[in-house]
């Protein structure tokens, strides 16, 4: 296992390096940040000074070398717009995104799995058919539209929940989170639901398919014959078997919950990393875009590793070793 983890980490470093090249050069050939930053009143000398200050007068390979040198020392460059280290900005916005992603993951598990289980066990029940139809909508409706509809319904028409923003925060275990206050939970509910809709649908479908398949298997028949109660069969034996694909997909999707919460964060004015990223892209704040993507690469690599380890716990047949070894 240790060898496996070390090998995976080595691969991760290579992937991160490769990404740094692609991302840095990709981001640096698009647009011209200088005109996004300087005041229109600035004259030619001011503009040239800005170009020099941002280091944009240097050849691109030299800019990359300086970036790499900084990155190895944990400095991913200063934001053009905020003048602060990009890493610090991203870390500052990270708790908001993480709590949103965890809430969405939580919702998709506590709603998706029971609903999927139900529709898998009783496939002909009209409620099951309703659930499946709903999950198609969850897949196919665009997030930004659903987000606006949720705001219109729950905030504007019914007035139950606040429309945008992050509400009060309090600290649990030293982390500032809005999950610690009632006001914060009221604020997070709509964006988390919006972000989780697709994942709920995914969980429903995966669970349902798994249950349908497992219920016909020999071990279920055998368990029945042995006289085990239905609830024991479902919650101990069937669940254990169908959880592997669900954990895999949800784990991978968790990465995308963090990485692609951009739309939800923009619509709900949620002060997370996604909103920071979209602002950085629009304003061509290159260091922030590059740093964000580098962090995301790290995230995905780590999540994959965690999923692999979870596998071995759920299914003892899976051993953590390289296929080739």
């Amino acid at each position: 296992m240790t060898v496996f983890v070390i090998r995976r980490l080595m691969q991760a470093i290579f992937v991160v390096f490769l990404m740094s090249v692609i991302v840095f050069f990709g981001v640096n050939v698009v647009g011209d940040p200088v005109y996004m930053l300087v005041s229109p009143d600035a004259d030619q000398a001011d503009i040239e000074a800005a170009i020099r200050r941002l280091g944009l007068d240097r050849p691109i390979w030299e800019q990359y070398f300086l970036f790499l040198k900084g990155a190895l020392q944990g400095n991913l460059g200063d934001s053009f717009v905020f003048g602060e280290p990009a890493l610090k900005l991203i870390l500052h916005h990270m708790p908001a995104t993480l709590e949103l992603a965890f809430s969405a993951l939580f919702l998709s598990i506590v709603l998706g799995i029971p609903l999927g289980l139900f529709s898998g066990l009783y496939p002909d029940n009209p409620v099951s058919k309703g659930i499946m139809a709903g999950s198609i909508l969850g897949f196919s409706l665009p997030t930004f539209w659903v987000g606006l509809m949720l705001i219109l319904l729950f905030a504007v028409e019914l007035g139950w929940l606040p429309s945008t923003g992050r509400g009060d925060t309090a600290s649990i275990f030293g982390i500032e989170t809005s999950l610690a206050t009632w006001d914060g939970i009221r604020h997070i509910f709509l964006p988390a639901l919006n972000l989780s809709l697709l994942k709920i649908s995914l969980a429903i479908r995966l669970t349902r398919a798994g249950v349908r398949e497992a219920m016909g298997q020999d071990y279920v028949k055998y368990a029945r014959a042995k006289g085990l109660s239905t609830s024991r069969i479902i919650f101990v034996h069937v669940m254990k078997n169908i959880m592997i694909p669900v954990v895999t997909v949800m784990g991978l999707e968790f990465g995308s919950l963090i990485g692609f919460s951009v739309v939800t964060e923009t619509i709900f004015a949620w002060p997370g990393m996604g909103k920071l990223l979209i602002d950085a892209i629009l304003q061509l704040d290159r260091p922030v875009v590059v740093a964000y993507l580098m962090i995301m690469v790290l995230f995905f690599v780590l999540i994959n590793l965690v999923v692999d380890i979870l596998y071995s716990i759920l299914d003892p047949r899976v051993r953590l070793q390289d296929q080739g070894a």
Partner: protein
Amino acid sequence: MRKLSAVAVATVSALALFTGAALAEKLTIGLASEPTSMDPHFHNLGPNNAMSVHIFDRLIAQDEKQRLSPGLAVSWKPIDDLTWEFKLREGVKFHDGSDFTADDVICTMERAPEVPNSPSGYGTYLKGKSFKKIDDYTVHAITEAPYPLMANDISTIPVISDSAGCGAATEDFNAGSASIGTGPFKFSDYKPGESITLVRNDDYWGDAPAWSEVEFRPIKSGPSRVAALLAGDVDMIAGVPTTDISTLEAKDDIQLSQGVSNRVIYLHMDQFRENSPFVKGNDGSEIKNPLMDQRVRLAISKAINRDAIVDRVMEGVAIPAGQLLPEGFFGVSDKLSPEAYDPEAAKALLAEAGYGDGFQLTIHGPNDRYINDAKIAEAIGQMLTRVGIKTAVETMPRSVYFGRASRGSPDGLPEFSFILVGWGAGSGEASSPLKSLIHTFDKDKGFGSSNRGRHSNAEIDALIEEALQTVDDEKRQDLLAKSTEMAIENVAIIPTHFQVNTWAAKKGLKYTPRTDEYTLAMGVVKE
């Protein structure tokens, strides 16, 4: 008994008044764009400047029409050709209780251009000026040449405190410890991306604002901002999308306020290349650049139906433009009106210039910078095609657009031939667009920095430069108006319309619209 009830009524009504006032005293505003810092000298950008006005007074204030009025200086005047004298307001206190004196002004002027990591500083306004303390309430500003725009430049510089702010870093301002000004509001809390909270400065030297606390929330997405207002989460929003204006107008509990801005939307035409990259003959061959011909430029101006752009594209929320600033601003000409729509005359002019069959042209514009910018470019493309100039439309994000439009060609020159751009006159008078858009591109003098069409006319240049050296207001007004008239006559650029900004508030609140597009809590009053 009667007496008692009278007392009771008085108490109850006083109580009602009190609670009513207390409830309404917190104001929440949804902003379309967020300041990048609380350091008033960090980034010379509209949203930053608007925020800093709350906390930091300027020596000279700009009112809602950008007219100058006394701020921390009670008077200012040139005492000789090279020296301006500012008399400071006495008895003003900073938020931390310290007195405002000339020392604060001197250190402000030293810090403003020198903030580390600043993306765009205030050096632009302080170049060639040095400041000298005469006594505690008198400051001299000394220049190398006569400089009439001193007051306009100085009105852009937020004054910070010598003891709390001058030695401080940007982080200290963001944390609040250095955000000590003399303004109507005090810093309370800053959560980037989330909210900015200010509280009233009860010792303010001017009119105290109506709000004891103000919270600004950045809500970038237009529809979400409107929804937040409708849901009652915010009391007022800035930047109402034009598509939502009619919906909001129909609502009884929402009140709109609209005002023309200092921003003109205009077209620049390549006037410096014999062969312009995006001008082609009808068969796609290279032709001599027709945009060099004044008749062709005038034909384009006549071919544009400005009323249609305002009515259809802008849903009525804009004003057709015939010059660089709307009426009422210093330096505008009263002789100019928007060029009338006349496609026949346009065709005749094209024929006279030898382009009776037209030519091919591409209009380039941003699609995320000005209100409805991409739609305007499309409309103009169609209008030109109708008079025979077959116009293709290409729009792109501003992050790509402005770099290419300014120096995108391989030799560092503007890349495009025909572009849609906007200009907001930050100084609130006509020299701002004239020296940046109309004056010949001149790196050494710092003129024409946004002259992307490179129109060049020595006579206009001389007039603009003379205006910039003329301290007498009346003479300068005439010179600026004269140069504007000449620029329009030569069709140096083609103005299309002035942007109109819209704010929306709950019923009972009124916002005085500002030409500089700022959203200020001081401008919100209860009706």
